[in-house]
């Protein structure tokens, strides 16, 4: 049984829809969500007023500003396309905040956020909270397939000069030509590593961190994805393979045990054998 949920269904008007290359930023007035959400938590958004598509879709809360919540979307299927097509004043139906967020380290020297593609989404909020918690220095390693899928550096920094962004693209269209994990050398000896992105990226990051040999107390967390039935722990649909303390294989629920998990708890090998969250 997981922590008490303070989630609720909330309806609020969309106030803006912005595009950054292939990514879409949707901002809506959702006061309860805005005041309760912690970095790394997500909301389940309805994409249509009809029963098709049926289920809500999970999205990290990327930013809050007063009563407003911002989401960053990549249009990959029917649900995200419908959301991205919403117009200001249309009503957004959100259920949240849901899930376990990132561990916000306090007063630490250096934190690193590793983002792959739309995995950028939880980081603006996390960066803000890390800085509020007294973290001196933050590096965001931001990778994507191409420049059009790179979230702009200003969205992580928001004018804060203690936040550094390094970029990499698979096709070399912006930043270093290569994988985001190739940028790890730019962030030596972090007090905490936070990651979000495709499973393959997370797995190679986990391997890289293992070879660096982080101490057991270093915070090293990743936000994972699974197809979700409910988002609040009742359907048991979002199982992810983990290793328990006794190294036994087990399932954890992405929606309530996660989406943020300690990287050393995830069974990356098992995960790589699964078809992935994208089940369309």
């Amino acid at each position: 049984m997981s922590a008490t949920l303070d989630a609720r269904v909330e309806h609020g008007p969309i106030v803006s829809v912005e595009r950054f290359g292939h990514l879409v930023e949707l901002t809506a007035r959702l006061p309860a969500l805005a005041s309760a959400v912690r970095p790394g938590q997500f909301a389940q958004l309805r994409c249509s007023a009809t029963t098709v598509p049926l289920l809500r879709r999970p999205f990290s809360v990327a930013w809050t500003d007063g009563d407003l919540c911002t989401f960053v979307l990549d249009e990959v299927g029917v649900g995200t396309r419908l959301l991205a097509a919403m117009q200001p004043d249309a009503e957004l139906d959100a259920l949240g905040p849901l899930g376990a967020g990132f561990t916000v380290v306090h007063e630490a020297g250096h934190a690193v956020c590793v983002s792959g593609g739309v995995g950028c989404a939880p980081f603006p909020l996390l960066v803000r909270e890390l800085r509020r918690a007294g973290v001196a220095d933050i590096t965001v390693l931001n990778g994507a397939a191409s420049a059009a899928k790179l979230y702009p550096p200003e969205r992580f920094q928001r004018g804060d000069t203690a936040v550094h962004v390094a970029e990499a693209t698979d096709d070399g269209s912006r930043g270093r030509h290569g994988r985001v994990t190739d940028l790890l050398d730019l962030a030596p000896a972090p007090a905490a590593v936070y990651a979000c992105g495709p499973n393959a990226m997370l797995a190679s990051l986990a391997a890289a961190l293992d070879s660096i040999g982080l101490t057991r107390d270093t915070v090293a967390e990743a936000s994972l994805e699974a197809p979700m039935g409910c988002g609040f722990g009742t359907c048991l649909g979002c199982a992810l393979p983990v290793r328990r303390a006794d190294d036994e294989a087990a399932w954890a629920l992405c929606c309530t045990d996660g989406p943020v998990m300690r990287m050393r708890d995830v069974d990356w090998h098992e995960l790589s054998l699964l078809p992935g969250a994208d089940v369309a």
Partner: protein
Amino acid sequence: MRVDLGRGLALPNPVGLASGTAGYGFELRNLIDLDRLGALFTKGTTRLSRSGNAPPRVAETSGGGLLNSIGLQNPGVEWVATQYAPRFAEWRVPVVVNVAGENEADYVHCVRRLEGVAGVAGIELNISCPNIAHGMDFGRDAGAAARLVEAVRAVTVRHVMVKLSPNVTDIAAVARAVQDSGADSVSAVNTYVGMKIHRRSGRPVLPDGTGGLSGPAIQPLALAAVAAVRAAVTIPVVGVGGIVDAASANDFLLVGAQAVQVGTATFVDPNTALHVLQGITALRGAHTVSG
């Protein structure tokens, strides 16, 4: 709005939460006022704990349906009897424990273990789970279903509701068989066997190939099944399948169901069952006035 289903199972109102879509109530209690509902049907509970199937376990279908293959992940009947039931006992909502198994001994063990346990309002015998080995063996064979119900009947004085499988030629025959062997009520329907293909790989999404289809896509099928069952038995019938709002729930009451269960729609909005309750209360009011 009270619905007396007989042999000690009386629901404060006709709207319950379907098995497997409300867990054991703990998560949902944080989201909604569970105590206003007519009943909570727990996740399918087995003799021993089960860790469930490999993911992916859920997949949406383009026609308004959800396929699942959870594989009865549950903590086992002992845990339910000792850890959960005492908490159920403090709730106003009646909790009916959904019991599943692979053979007669499994079912009998579970039902016997729950006998006399406070907090358990009744038993729902799940003879229709498409996602475990032998899960539907009983639900798809009227004779086997009847023998199972007889065996269970022998070890409990509680209300036994039998959850029917729609994946059969003649659901009415199964309903009659379980009535004749001592079931107090039937719930219909469980999920329909369905498949989804992962378009990138060309292979089925779910690890076993097939899963159980639920959601609005199946409502017209469930309704026809409930009407057929209603015509075949005299015991109460509980309608379930694709309810999303008061109108789609009321359809089941109109074809003769005494109560309903809301399933998949709770995932979309945890308040659905409360909205359904409110809506059918209003509909009944309207009919009373106009009729």
